């Protein structure tokens, strides 16, 4: 299973080197990857169907308790099959859709990384691994949304999506860590579940839910975070079909489903999910009525569908879970083809504006057929998979307790708008008279129209034989979530309320489609409300934040070196000064110190004078000379205090530095009185404060007892182990020889730097 997850990443990496073969029209072979994975996961179905999950554990970071633990149970397998199944169609479609694009190999690389990340996420049993794969889907989707990176709008949309889903990713990390800690450092979901831990009684329950909801709502585009999804429609159509309808946006739903056995069963879980889901589906459903861009309509209908799923998880009964599990594949099977068809229309008719598209069935009837089938399933006509799903949704809302009427009403309303959206996208462009401007349009190659037709046909097939899907796919998933629940799917449930509601939905949807025509006027009407929509508010917040941080950065990073230093120093002084202050006064124990001797005082006096002279003299040569004196004084100090090696080194280096300065100095201009007295005063104050702090720090450290264990080791072993008597030298060339090796390399680099700075002239000088 690890190989299955990693294959996407490996393939993407390999494309870096062999990508040019893909550019020469061989991209269709890339389809073998998702197809092979699909077959592999399908082969796991019998075992998982018997209720035995397929598991695989690879140690990854054992010290953190993180493992690459994969576990294919019913739920994971359902999602894995959708990911690879729809993925196969998308790869095939893209191989033709982007066949003339200069960087088609890059696209396939991103797509493969995304698929691998998605598979890793649904198969991960480890919470931290799940988080990592979750973030990888966000990152790869950033590149896919921004694939047309020469367009500013694309880049913006990609950044918005990354910001929103990235925020969710951080929340997921917090949730994962909290759940793991609440479970006593156990990050395996299955182990936590088998441990029988009741998280709802844990004091962190509320905060865990907050983080989980934040992660799921941002990823699955729930109100008020939904706005990134319509924005992400800047992506190429296959990306919209794959990421933004079939797979990635369902990641949030998957997370909620996965965690529902652990976190469900409490009002805090059910009530927010139900309310947010219901509100999102109605809000997005109404919103789509006003759009004229096909992809925009489909995006809002996807948001509405995600709202339905979240609402169902919120209701949380066995019926609702069954409805959610059926609705996930049903939605993928009709929404993906609708997006793909939009891509075809965009390609061959050059427009996605529903008010202009018409009559195209005359020139591309197979596409019209796929669109019609998908629209039927989308609307929930009998004998389609969508019908089965819709029936289950109504049944779940009807039996949802005290809110039954409200939820059912909202669900019917959403159903009507979804019907409308599906027909606008899948039927309307093909009806009526073919306008003159589209006469040139023609049937695209099979690679473009076969994938959507296959998916749409599968939607009808499962509608005719729902038992097949129910037995093989849905039942094992439901068993994992709700042990013992009945997962029987049927076409016909007899005459009952649900059937009546279905009829009402279809009739109302048909009426809406017939009488309510999309127009640019209606779109302009909602555009005006943009300012108070969550998107507008989020944009204004981000603009204000950018302005604030921009001003902050410009103040700090103003390009003046000395202000950077000043800032760093002030901060350090404040921080360490505070530490010294709270640490109490520094007591200097004079009895432990060495005595003052006359010649040392004289030496320090010379040093002090030379330092002051260096600082205040107006002559550069004098400053350099005084600096040299300081160095020699330091050298004498080393002599007095038992450091002959240091004294010798300091002496020679000091000499060389002064020579260097003198060699360069007479090429440089004189000092100019360029700093104002005010700035000198300020710098002087900071410098004195820092110097005083260093003195205080030194005294405080000197007051602590010294534990010379390291030195004692060297003193004892210098001769016995290293056969040397000068311990400083033994440390340099033997005990810490590797450090010295690096050090002389640094010296070499500095010399080469000097040489090349002086000797090598820039060519355009």
């Amino acid at each position, binding site marked *: 299973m690890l190989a299955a997850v990693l294959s996407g990443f490996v393939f993407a990496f390999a494309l870096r080197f062999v990508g040019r073969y893909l550019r020469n029209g061989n991209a269709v072979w890339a389809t073998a990857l998702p197809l092979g994975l699909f077959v592999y996961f399908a082969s796991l179905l019998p075992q998982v169907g018997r209720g035995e999950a397929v598991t695989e554990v690879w140690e990854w970071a054992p010290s953190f308790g993180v493992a690459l633990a994969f576990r294919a149970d019913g739920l994971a397998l359902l999602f894995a099959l959708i990911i690879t199944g729809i993925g196969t169609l998308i790869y095939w479609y893209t191989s033709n859709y982007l066949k003339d694009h200069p960087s088609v190999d890059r696209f396939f690389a991103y797509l493969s990384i995304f698929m691998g990340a998605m598979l890793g996420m649904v198969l991960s049993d480890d919470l931290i691994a799940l988080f990592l794969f979750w973030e990888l889907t966000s990152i790869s989707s950033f590149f896919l949304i921004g694939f047309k990176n020469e367009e500013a709008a694309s880049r913006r949309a990609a950044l918005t999506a990354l910001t929103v889903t990235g925020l969710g990713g951080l929340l997921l990390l917090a949730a994962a860590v909290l759940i793991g800690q609440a479970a006593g450092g156990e990050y395996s979901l299955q182990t936590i579940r088998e441990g029988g831990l009741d998280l709802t009684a844990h004091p962190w329950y509320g905060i865990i839910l907050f983080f989980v909801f934040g992660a799921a709502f941002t990823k699955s585009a729930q109100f008020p975070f939904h706005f990134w999804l319509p924005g992400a429609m800047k992506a190429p159509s296959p990306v919209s079909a794959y990421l933004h309808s079939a797979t990635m946006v369902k990641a949030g739903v998957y997370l909620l489903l996965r965690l529902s056995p652990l976190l469900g069963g409490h009002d805090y879980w059910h009530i927010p999910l139900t309310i947010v889901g219901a509100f999102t589906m109605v809000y997005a459903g109404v919103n789509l009525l006003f759009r004229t861009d096909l992809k925009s309509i489909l995006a809002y209908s996807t948001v509405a569908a995600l709202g339905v799923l979240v609402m169902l998880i919120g209701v949380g009964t066995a019926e609702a879970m069954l409805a959610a599990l059926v609705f996930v594949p049903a939605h993928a099977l009709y929404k993906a083809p609708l997006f793909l068809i939009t891509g075809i229309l965009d390609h061959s008719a050059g427009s996605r504006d529903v008010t202009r598209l018409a009559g195209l069935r005359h020139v591309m009837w197979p596409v019209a057929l796929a669109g019609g089938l998908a629209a039927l399933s989308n609307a929930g006509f009998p004998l389609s998979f969508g019908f089965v799903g819709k029936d289950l949704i109504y049944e779940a809302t009807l039996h949802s307790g005290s809110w039954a009427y409200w939820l059912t009403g909202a669900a019917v309303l959403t159903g009507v708008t979804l019907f409308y959206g599906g027909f606008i996208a899948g039927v309307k462009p093909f009806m009526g008279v073919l306008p003159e401007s589209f006469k040139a349009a023609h049937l695209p190659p099979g690679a473009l129209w076969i994938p959507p037709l296959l998916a749409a046909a599968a939607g009808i097939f499962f509608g005719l034989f729902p038992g097949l899907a129910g037995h093989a796919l849905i039942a094992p998933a439901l068993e994992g979530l709700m042990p013992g629940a009945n997962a029987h799917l049927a076409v016909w449930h007899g005459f009952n309320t649900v059937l009546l509601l279905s009829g009402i939905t279809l009739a109302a949807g048909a009426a809406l489609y017939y009488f309510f025509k999309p127009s640019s006027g209606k779109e302009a009407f909602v555009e005006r409300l943009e300012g108070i929509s969550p998107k507008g508010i989020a944009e204004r917040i981000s603009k204000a934040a950018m302005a604030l941080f921009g001003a902050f950065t410009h103040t700090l990073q103003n390009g003046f070196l000395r202000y950077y230093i000043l800032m760093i120093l002030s901060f350090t002084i404040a921080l360490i000064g505070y530490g010294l202050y709270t640490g109490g006064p520094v007591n200097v124990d004079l009895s432990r110190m060495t005595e003052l001797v006359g010649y040392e005082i004289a030496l320090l006096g010379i040093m002090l004078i030379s330092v002051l002279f260096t600082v205040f003299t107006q002559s550069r040569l004098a400053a350099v000379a005084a600096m040299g004196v300081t160095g020699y004084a330091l050298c004498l100090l080393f002599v007095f205090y038992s450091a002959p090696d240091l004294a010798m080194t300091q002496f020679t280096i000091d000499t*060389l530095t002064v020579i260097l300065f003198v060699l360069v100095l007479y090429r440089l201009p004189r000092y100019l009185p360029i700093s104002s007295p005010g700035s000198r005063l300020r710098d002087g104050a900071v410098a004195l404060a820092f110097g005083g702090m260093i003195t205080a720090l030194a005294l405080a450290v000197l007051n602590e007892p010294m534990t010379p264990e390291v030195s004692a080791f060297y003193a004892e072993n210098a001769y016995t182990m*290293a*056969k040397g008597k*000068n311990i400083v*030298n033994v440390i340099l060339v033997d005990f810490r020889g590797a450090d010295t*090796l690096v050090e*002389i390399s640094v010296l070499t680099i500095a010399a080469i730097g000097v040489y090349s700075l002086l000797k090598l002239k820039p060519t355009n000088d």
Partner: protein
Amino acid sequence: MKTIILQTASNYLLPLLLLFSVFILLRGHYLPGGGFVGGLVASIAFVLHAFANGLDKTRTLLRLHPAYFMPAGLAIALLSGLAPMLSALPFMTALWYPTPAPVVGMIGSPLFFDIGVYLVVTGATLTIIFTISETA
């Protein structure tokens, strides 16, 4: 600064200082000194010679550009670290020749390492100073 006294003095000082620097290098394991100080003393000797006789004279005396000392020194230091790996010991394990030599004392891989340091320090310092005096 081309005075007769300095020129004459430096002609005698150069070999003396170089000898001294080698002495400092070799005894470094037992008494104050070592590759760093030795290298610095050697480079001061050459700088002094260059000041007194002109850079070109020192150049001809040296034959090689001092920049070549750096890779040579690095190579010696690295090889002395790698040598013990031939006998399957960890990198930089000290190897010693069993009997001590006169003046130098024990001879072993750390000594060669120190010689490498000596060469690098001399090379780097001379490269820097010569380059600057050439272009100044």
